[in-house]
């Protein structure tokens, strides 16, 4: 049996202290988080609230005109439960003029524009609130590249990036995230009726198990087949992981000098702190 069970108490303790350490060592005390109404941002908010105190966390709700009303409502449930600060900024007026210029625009382009406008607002509020942007991307979506580059993936630190989606669910229960947020089908809510699992073509339950074998346990493809996964599915997932490496990397810099940033100019971000 492939078991992705985590010790939630242990994980929660590490992540809360991680947020506190990585924010306070830069001279900040506060966090801003785009709160979609989904489980990932709810978990990031709850962890940040525990780390910094609810008064030091700003949740930003960013509805588009086609966003599900449930999303706003679920976000509010969490804001009320945690007692964190919040602001709601509808994005339609910002997004529409650009979309309106291109009548044939695809859903993907529109979704990317929405994600990037939300990023602009998060960073603007970061300046106003004097807090760092806390990320909400889980390990499954980072590995699958199921994210908008410089959009929802943009952040100053990401507490949940080493947890698979199904592990985020475990942690959400431990954090007493409202049941309705944990149980609803995951969706980027970029257009009506969108769900992650129908778009990806597989369930998180299944792909998390495979990713755990491929990535964490370093299984080879034939060993995954022996574990009962279809070859076609394994190859599709492995290809996706490879294809989206660019979303997980800083842009390569052409090496010309004797010392090049990222290649042989190497320092941790926490340098000096």
């Amino acid at each position, binding site marked *: 049996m492939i*078991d992705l*069970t*985590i*010790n939630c108490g*242990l*994980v929660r*303790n*590490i992540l809360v*202290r*991680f947020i506190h*350490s*990585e924010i306070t060592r830069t001279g900040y005390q506060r966090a801003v988080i785009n709160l979609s109404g989904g489980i990932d941002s709810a978990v990031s908010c709850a962890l940040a609230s525990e780390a910094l105190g609810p008064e030091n966390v700003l949740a930003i709700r960013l509805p588009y005109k086609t966003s599900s009303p449930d999303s706003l409502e679920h976000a509010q449930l969490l804001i009320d439960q945690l007692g964190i600060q919040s602001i709601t900024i509808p994005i339609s007026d910002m997004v529409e003029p650009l979309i309106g210029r291109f009548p044939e625009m695809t859903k993907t382009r529109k979704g990317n524009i929405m994600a990037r406008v939300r990023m602009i607002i998060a960073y603007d509020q970061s300046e106003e609130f004097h807090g760092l942007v806390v990320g909400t991307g889980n390990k499954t979506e980072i590995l699958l590249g199921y994210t908008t580059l410089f959009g929802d993936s943009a952040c100053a630190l990401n507490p949940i990036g*080493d947890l698979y989606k199904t592990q985020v669910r475990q942690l959400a229960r431990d954090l007493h995230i409202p049941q309705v947020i944990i149980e609803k089908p995951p969706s980027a809510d970029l257009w009506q009726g969108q769900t992650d699992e129908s778009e990806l073509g597989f369930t998180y339950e299944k792909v998390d198990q495979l990713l755990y074998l491929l990535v964490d346990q370093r299984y080879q493809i034939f060993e995954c087949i022996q574990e009962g996964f279809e070859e076609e599915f394994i190859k599709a997932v492995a290809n996706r992981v490879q294809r989206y490496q660019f979303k997980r990397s800083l842009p390569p810099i052409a090496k010309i000098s004797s010392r090049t940033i990222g290649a*042989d*100019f*190497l*320092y*941790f*971000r*926490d*340098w*000096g*702190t």
Partner: protein
Amino acid sequence: MKIKIALAQINTRLGDLSSNLEHHLSIASEACQNNADLVVFPELSLTGYSLQDLVPQVAIQPSKEEPLFKQLLHASLEIDMVVGFVEEDARHRFHIAAAYISKGEIVHIHRKVHLPTYGIFDEKRFLAAGNTFRAFDTRFGRIGLLICEDFWHVSSPYLLWQDGADIFLLQSASPGRGVTDENIGSADWVETVNRSYAGLFTAFFAHSNRVGFEDGLYFWGGATLFDPDGKLVAMGPYDQESITYAEMDLSQLRRTRTRLPLLRDERPEIVLHELGRILKHD
């Protein structure tokens, strides 16, 4: 003889020697006030762990005149200390090192032999490896120093044991990994190994591991002292800065080794002979 040991599981500022030095001096003075004889700091305690290109900037050639060591040596008039730092040798190779200092003297320096360069570790890229394991005499008896990956190799404490070490002082900057069980996976492993070594070598094993974060890496603390029976004498908390005090009753060595004469019955000449044969065949 009874020795009071202080295991200082501290956080560090990455690459900031003067602030880390200040922290050492204040911990040493606190340990002294609590009547400790010896304080053990973690690996790279004066510099922080994830140094990368900071290595040459924080490297030290230790001597009585070197300004940072001068202050440490002054503090060592009151209390013996084991500190972690980057040592630059005469030909400008940089080593992860641990110094045992006492009564104003540098008694011994151990250069980390096993530099992990896999997974999250990249030590060989930036640092040179040491090539000796030597026990040394102190006012408390014969001691062996090991730094983190050194004690993931069973040969390291074995050699120190055969070289006469009865007290083993281990330093780590051990990043936590593995969150499926009751305890952090790497913490479990280190505790099990320390306990086993203490029992197998019928000796004292003290371990000092740092706390805090560097980027995503998380250090878990949890200092331990195991006695020659493999029993846990004291343990520090996980995750937070703390000084753990514990007593080493050196007469325990005699009692344990009378009951369980593993040291007496060990046959290092067979190890030497067989290794000679094995290595020749390679």
